[in-house]
């Protein structure tokens, strides 16, 4: 590969990095994460919210997960290749958890698995 092509490619790589957010964005994300965590703990202790505890906690955890992955891990800014490398296995991992839960708790409930 000639030098021009090298510079071009490095330029592209650095251009991507230049789009990484800077400190103010990171701090805002941290504040949101703190608020979400406080809300999670509040939900845990609030008797009136026990009915919807599980869906609420799952939603809050997903929000925190997405914030860290998108901003701190830069998936929102980096090449989509990285998102694919993360999301596909993550989906598979979620399917494994769901499948085993189904197999043990519901499909085989009366079969003493």
């Amino acid at each position, binding site marked *: 590969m000639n030098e021009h092509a090298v510079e071009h490619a490095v330029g592209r790589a650095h251009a991507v990095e230049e789009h990484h957010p800077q400190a103010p964005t990171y701090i805002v994300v941290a504040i949101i994460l703190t608020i979400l965590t406080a809300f999670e703990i509040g939900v845990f202790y609030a008797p009136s919210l026990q009915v919807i505890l599980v869906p609420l906690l799952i939603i809050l955890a997903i929000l925190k997960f997405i914030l860290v992955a998108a901003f701190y891990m830069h998936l929102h800014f980096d090449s989509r*290749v990285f998102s694919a490398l993360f999301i596909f296995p993550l989906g598979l991992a979620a399917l494994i958890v769901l499948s*085993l839960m189904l197999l043990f*708790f519901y499909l085989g409930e009366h079969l003493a698995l």
Partner: protein
Amino acid sequence: MAAQPKPLYVRELNYLEGGGIYGWLTTIDHKRIAVLYGITALVMLLFGGVEALLVRTQLMVPNNHFLTAQQYNQFFTMHGLTMIFLVIMPLETGFFGNFLIPLQIGARDVAFPRLNALSYWVFLLGAITINLGWIWGALPNDGWFGYANLTEKFYSPGINIDFYDIGLLILGVSSVMSALNFFVTIINMRAPGMTFFRMPMFIWSLLVTTILILLAFPALTVGLIFLFMDRYFDTHYYRVIAGATPILWQHLFWIFGHPEVYIMILPAFGLISEIIPVFSHKPLFGYPMMAYSLILIAFLSYGVWGHHMFATGMGPIADSTFAITSMLIAIPTGIKIFSWIATVWGGRLQFSTAFLFAIAFVLQFTIGGLSGVMHASPPIDLEQTDSYIIVAHFHYVLGLGALFAVLGALYMYWPKITGRMLSEKLGKWNFWLAVWSFNATFFPMHFLGELGMPRRIYTYAPHMGWDFWNYWETINAYIIALSFIILAINVWWSLQYGERAAADPWDARTLEWSTPTPPPVYNFAAVPTVMARDAFWVAKYGNVEATGLEQSNVAATAPSLVDVSKIHIPAPSLYPVFIALGVFGMGIGMLVEWYRVVLMGAALLAISVISMTFEYPSWGREDPHAVAESFLSLDSRKVGIWSFIGSECVFFASLISTYMVYKARSTGPFDADILNIPLTSFSTFVLLMSSLLMVLALAGYQRNDKFWGTFWLIGTAIFGCIFLGGQVYEFGDFWLNEGMLFNSNLFSQCFYTLVGFHGFHVFIGVCWLVTLAVAGMLGKIDTKRSLAVEIGGLYWHFVDIVWVVIFTLVYLMRTIKHA
């Protein structure tokens, strides 16, 4: 006067020359590593073959006492383990994968050459570990699937199962490292112009295989860790008496185990897809569908594990689901078989030994595949499971399938690897004897299965109707051995007297044949630019549909003058050997319960890893050429860490699933109410804020602010230590004040394991951060080298988001029964 560039290939040694024993010990050249894998796997093939012959000799006549029942169990178990983990996988992925991937994609080496060497040495020592039972007289004896709860101390008090458990854990580490390396290489290091749909089909098959390895092995690792804990720490992961279920092992094992079948067969598909077009002088028929079929097979392979478990009583819905997905796999597999036939159809056929093995593969694999479709039906499977029909099925798929593909590929690629031709005459003898003896041995097993002969019995009574076929099969098993003796003679003859091979002796189609034979260390003097599929064929004959009878213009395509002395070749390293020895020491120390050896192994491992980190003089440097030469303009290290994180997702998913299942089944004095929410809320906050410090550190280094970069990095490590301190306090409180031991009940063991493994990841992260901080203080990190911090940061943030999940599921949902 300017110096003239050196003529192409004048002075350079080929990859086999030079260096001596030390050169081989420290090599990081993918071709040499391939040869090391090949030699090791062929030695293991000898072991696996002898084990098979011992098994067959025992079964030759009824009421035989050639072996004891205990010896028989050990030999059939070792035969399975050896052939799967130490022969087929390393030959396909370690040997052919290592040798061919860079050559076929136009790269000079794999993405991480030292990791490649480490993978081999760990593999070698893992193979030795699992075979150490020969010395102790205690080989693994519970089948390659190691079904719980037979593997528990109560039922298997010897150390046979410990060799299985620790050996497979070590081999798993090697497999995952190799897969990660190859995946990144294929994704990111292809030559310019080599798009996905210009890649050779073998590369496609390995791309899919590496994904399978990365996402399947963690489930096995978790299952093996549980087994290890049951045997060493007296936990109850597979003990019914404690409320657990051995079925958990089957799920974890087969979540790995069925993709493992495809890990063995997909590279075989790839090799066959290389052999058939070359000797048919036609392009591969239906290339896009062949590639899509591979992807579909891999995707479906994760949804079929239950077909190994129909007999466990999963219920009609689960059985039906797994049956449907299992049958669906026949569709993409059928596409491949018809495409191979269509490739041969109308071709200008050259009946070389390699081609004969390939044709035999297609026919024999089809037989094995068809019996596989039968077993996908639960009612039929319930009749056939654990009978000799199953033994026939998997030997047709893997013995007469995968092994035949390997043999065919060996005949085709031997000249490129060694520079010598094999004897075609001996090859034909090898082939016809193998075809006869393999079929004569394994086809009658269908009859034995139908006659009711179960698997794994060490002897049988006379007059069951099994005598003749068992006698017949044993005689033919020895003929299989004879066919391999002929192969060995052929190999010896070739190395001694074989004709010197030309660069392209088969008039082949892909880039590896454009290199000299054997290839030079750097593979390609000039990185090729790929303009079409079957790039070398097109270079020779102008278009992919050419018959090969046209005038070759290959000489005109080679660059005439290239200064090869300027090609960067990574320096050799001895650290992979030391790291592997550290892993080996830890494993052996655990096996014989010499904990000093475990500590010495851990120390050697840690020192070697840190030393290797600083070994490379331009440590952490973003290599502009590496980025520029990458196909996607991405740094391979970043692709690598994301691939690793993907693999870790499945690891934690397996741990979390087990926690959730067993928490609901747990009885006894302790449950999730014991958990300390205020303390853990604080720890959660600390860990989340450590992620903030981590990105601030990265931002600091990216703007070349070394002080603040290092400052925030140290801050991150301190926050990590605070988190770990909280965990130590929590564990200590449970242990000392509440009396909740590791093995008190299902809840306690799952809690300590899940949270403990996360803590271990945090600990590794802290060590990583400290290493980075030291490098920062030594001035080794600046803007150009900030990628090192980014990669460490990605791992750290991943550990953080895993905690987000654990905090929610384990702590905040502690009162929910099924959560």
